[in-house]
C-alpha cells in the first residue's frame, strides 16, 4: 500500500491533483491561499467582534462574561478539527509517500496546539465566575486537555529526529495512532464523568439568542481563516527550508 | 544456489548530503568485494544498506539467489561494529537466538562447531559481558558459520578484523576464502591490510 513518492508519481502522473503534490508547484498556491486567509480572518474578526460586543445583548443568566464564548468555542472547535486534518495529511503521506503531505501536517500542529491552549485558558477564565473554580474535571474540558497532550507528543516526536524523513514518517504514525484513539478516549472520559457525577456544573445547554449565535459563527469562520493562513505560512517556510538546494528556491530568494 | 548482486546508481544520504557518487556494479558468485574509503566515506552506511538495514536514497539494490530476486534478509549475513549479542546472556544463548531468527532449528552442535572454528568453543557458556573485545568479535563472527550450506549467503563484513589477534585474523582470512570457494559473495571494509586468496576480486572505492 505504502508507496514512495517516486512510485506515486509513476501512478498518478498527469492527474490534476498530482500536479500540486510537488512542493514547487504548491508554493505559489499556498501563497495565494495564505493571503486570502489573512484577509478573511481580519474582516470576519472585525465584523464578528462588532456584533458580539456592540449588538449582542447581555446574557440573562451570566451577565457579560459570556462574551468569552466568541473566542472560546471557535478555539475549541479548531483544536479538534486541526487534529483531524493533521491525521488526514499524515495518512496521505504514509500511503502516497508525498513530502508535501507530511509538511502539511507539521504546519498544522503548532496552530492546533495553540488553539487547544486558548480553549483551555479561556475556558478556565470563564469557569471562575460561572462555576466558582478555574477547573473542573468535566468531560469536555478533560478531553481538550488530553488533545493538547496528543499535540505535544506529536511535536516532541517530530523534533527528536535529526533525520527529517524519519521524523516525518514517525510523527505521521503517532498522529494516526492518536486519531484512532481519540474517539475511544472521548467516549471513555464522557462515561467516567457520568459515572462519578463529580461536577454538577458543565458547559452547554443554555439556549442562546440568535444574534449571539451569529456572532459566534462569524468568529468561527474568522478562526478558521486564521488557522489556514498560519498553516500556509508555516508550510511555505518549510518548503523553503527543505528544498533549499533546489534552483527555484534560490531564484526565489534573489 | 548461485548468489548475485546488482547495484544500479545506488546513493546514500546523510545529513542531507550524498555520501558518494552513484555506484553501479554487477557482482557474481564467488566474488570478494573490497569496499574502501577514508574515515567517513560511507562504507558502513553502504554495507548496512546492502544488508537491508537502512534505506538507500536513490538507485536499486537487487540480490539474487539461484537466479531469482531475493530479499536482503534471505541473501545476506551482516556483522558490523556492534556485535549483536546481549551482555547478560551467554555466547550460546545469543547464537541460538540468532540462528532461530535466521530460521534454523536449535542445533547446539552446529553452534559449537562454529565457535570451535574461531577458537572460542570454551567460551560458549560464558556471559558475553565478561569477554574481552576480541573474544566478543570472534563469537559474533561465529554467527556467519551457522548457515546450513556453505556459500548460501553473502557475507557483509564491516571491519571484521578489528580486535582480532593476529592468529585469528589469519583464521578469518581462511574462512572467507573457503566461503568464496563455496560460491558466496563477501563484501568487506577494512582499514587493516589482509590477504585473501580469491578467484575474483572487485573493489568499490568510495
Amino acid at each position, binding site marked *: 500500500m505504502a508507496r514512495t513518492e517516486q512510485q506515486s508519481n509513476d501512478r498518478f502522473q498527469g492527474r490534476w491533483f498530482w500536479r500540486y503534490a510537488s512542493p514547487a508547484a504548491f508554493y505559489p498556491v499556498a501563497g495565494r491561499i495564505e493571503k486570502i486567509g489573512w484577509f478573511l480572518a481580519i474582516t470576519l474578526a472585525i465584523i464578528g467582534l462588532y456584533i458580539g460586543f456592540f449588538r449582542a445583548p447581555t446574557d440573562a443568566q451570566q451577565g457579560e462574561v459570556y462574551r468569552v464564548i466568541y473566542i472560546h468555542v471557535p478555539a475549541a472547535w479548531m483544536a479538534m478539527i486541526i487534529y483531524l486534518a493533521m491525521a488526514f495529511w499524515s495518512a496521505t503521506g504514509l500511503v502516497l509517500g508525498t513530502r508535501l503531505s507530511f509538511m502539511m501536517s507539521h504546519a498544522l500542529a503548532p496552530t492546533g496546539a495553540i488553539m487547544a491552549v486558548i480553549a483551555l485558558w479561556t475556558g478556565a477564565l470563564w469557569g471562575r465566575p460561572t462555576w466558582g473554580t478555574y477547573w473542573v474535571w468535566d468531560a469536555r474540558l478533560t478531553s481538550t486537555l*488530553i488533545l493538547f*497532550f*496528543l499535540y*505535544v*507528543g506529536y511535536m*516532541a*516526536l517530530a523534533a*527528536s*529526529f535529526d533525520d527529517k524523513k*524519519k521524523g516525518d*514518517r*514517525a510523527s505521521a*504514525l*503517532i498522529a494516526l*495512532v*492518536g486519531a*484512532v*484513539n481519540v474517539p*475511544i*478516549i472521548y*467516549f*471513555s*472520559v464522557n*462515561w*467516567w464523568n457520568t*459515572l462519578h457525577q463529580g461536577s454538577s456544573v458543565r458547559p452547554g445547554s443554555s439556549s442562546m439568542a440568535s444574534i449571539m449565535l451569529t456572532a459566534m459563527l462569524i468568529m468561527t469562520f474568522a478562526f478558521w481563516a486564521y488557522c489556514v493562513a498560519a498553516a500556509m505560512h508555516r508550510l511555505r517556510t518549510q518548503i523553503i527550508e527543505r528544498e533549499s538546494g533546489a534552483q527555484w528556491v534560490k531564484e526565489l530568494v534573489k | 544456489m548461485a548468489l548475485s548482486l546488482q547495484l544500479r546508481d545506488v546513493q546514500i544520504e546523510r545529513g542531507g548530503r550524498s555520501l558518494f557518487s552513484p555506484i553501479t556494479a554487477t557482482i557474481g558468485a564467488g566474488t570478494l568485494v573490497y569496499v574502501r574509503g577514508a574515515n567517513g566515506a560511507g562504507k558502513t552506511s553502504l554495507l548496512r544498506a546492502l*544488508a*537491508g*538495514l*537502512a*534505506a538507500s536514497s536513490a538507485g536499486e539494490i537487487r540480490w539474487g539467489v539461484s537466479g531469482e530476486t531475493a*530479499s*536482503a*534478509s*534471505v541473501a*545476506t549475513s*551482516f556483522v*558490523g*561494529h*556492534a*556485535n*549483536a*549479542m*546481549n*551482555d*547478560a*546472556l551467554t555466547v550460546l*544463548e*545469543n547464537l*541460538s*537466538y*540468532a540462528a*532461530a*531468527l*535466521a*530460521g*534454523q*532449528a536449535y542445533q547446539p552442535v552446529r553452534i559449537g562447531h562454529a565457535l570451535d572454528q574461531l577458537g572460542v568453543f570454551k567460551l560458549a557458556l560464558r*556471559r558475553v559481558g565478561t569477554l574481552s573485545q576480541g573474544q566478543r568479535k570472534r563469537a559474533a563472527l561465529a554467527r556467519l558459520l551457522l548457515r546450513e550450506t556453505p556459500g548460501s549467503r553473502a557475507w557483509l563484513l564491516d571491519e571484521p578484523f578489528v580486535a582480532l589477534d593476529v592468529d585469528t585474523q589469519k583464521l578469518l582470512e581462511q574462512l572467507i576464502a573457503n566461503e568464496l570457494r563455496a560460491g558466496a559473495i563477501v563484501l568487506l571494509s577494512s582499514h587493516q591490510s589482509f590477504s585473501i586468496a580469491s578467484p575474483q576480486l572487485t573493489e568499490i572505492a568510495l
Partner: protein
Amino acid sequence: MSLRLAASAVFRREFQLFARRKSDWANPLMFFVIVCSLFPFAVGSETERLRGIGVGVIFVGALLAALLTLPRLFDEDARDGSLDLLLNSNEPLAMLVLARVAALSIGIGAPLILATPLFSLLYALPSDVALVLALAVALAVPTLLLVGAIAAALLVTARGGAILTAVLVLPLTIPTLIFGAGAASKVLYGESPFAELSLQAAYLLFALALSPLAASAALKISTD
C-alpha cells in the same frame, strides 16, 4: 513452522534475560512498592481516606511501573546491535514484536499482579475489591505495553528516550485506566464490575489487533 521457531526464540530469550538479570522484573516491582507505600505518608493514614484513594494509587502505580520498562523493549537491542537480527529475520516482524511484548507482559506483569492484593490490604480495601483490582491490572499491563511498543519502536534511534515514551503513551492508556479503576470502584460500592471489565478487555483486544502492526511499521521507520 519457522515462524513458531523464531517467535518462541524471542519469547524464550526474554525469559533468559529475566532469569539472568533479576532487576529486569524486580525493579518495576520495587517501583510499584515504593509508589504504593509513599502515598500514605503524603496524604495521611486515616482509613477512610486511604480506602478512597487506594484503587487509584495502586492502579496508577502499576501502570507507571509497566511504563518504565518500555525502553527495555528495543533500546538495549539497538545499542548492542541485536535489533538488526530481529529486523533482518525473514518472519513477519509484527509477530516477533508480539512475542516479545507477550513475554514482557508476563515477566513484569505477574509480579505486579501478585503484589496488587497485598497492597490492597495496606489501603484497607476488602478482598473482593482486591481481586477485581488484580484482574484489572492484569488487563491493563499488556494493553499499556502494546500501545507503548509503538512509541518505544519509534523512539529507538531518536533522542528523548524513556520519558518521551511516557508522554506519547500515557494519554492513550486513559481508557484502560478509567475502566480498570472504575471496575474496582464499582465493587467497592457493591455493584457489578462486569461492564467495566468487558470494556477494558475490548480495549486490550483492540490493542492486540492493531499495535503489533503499528509497532513493526514504527521499527522499520525508525531504523531505516
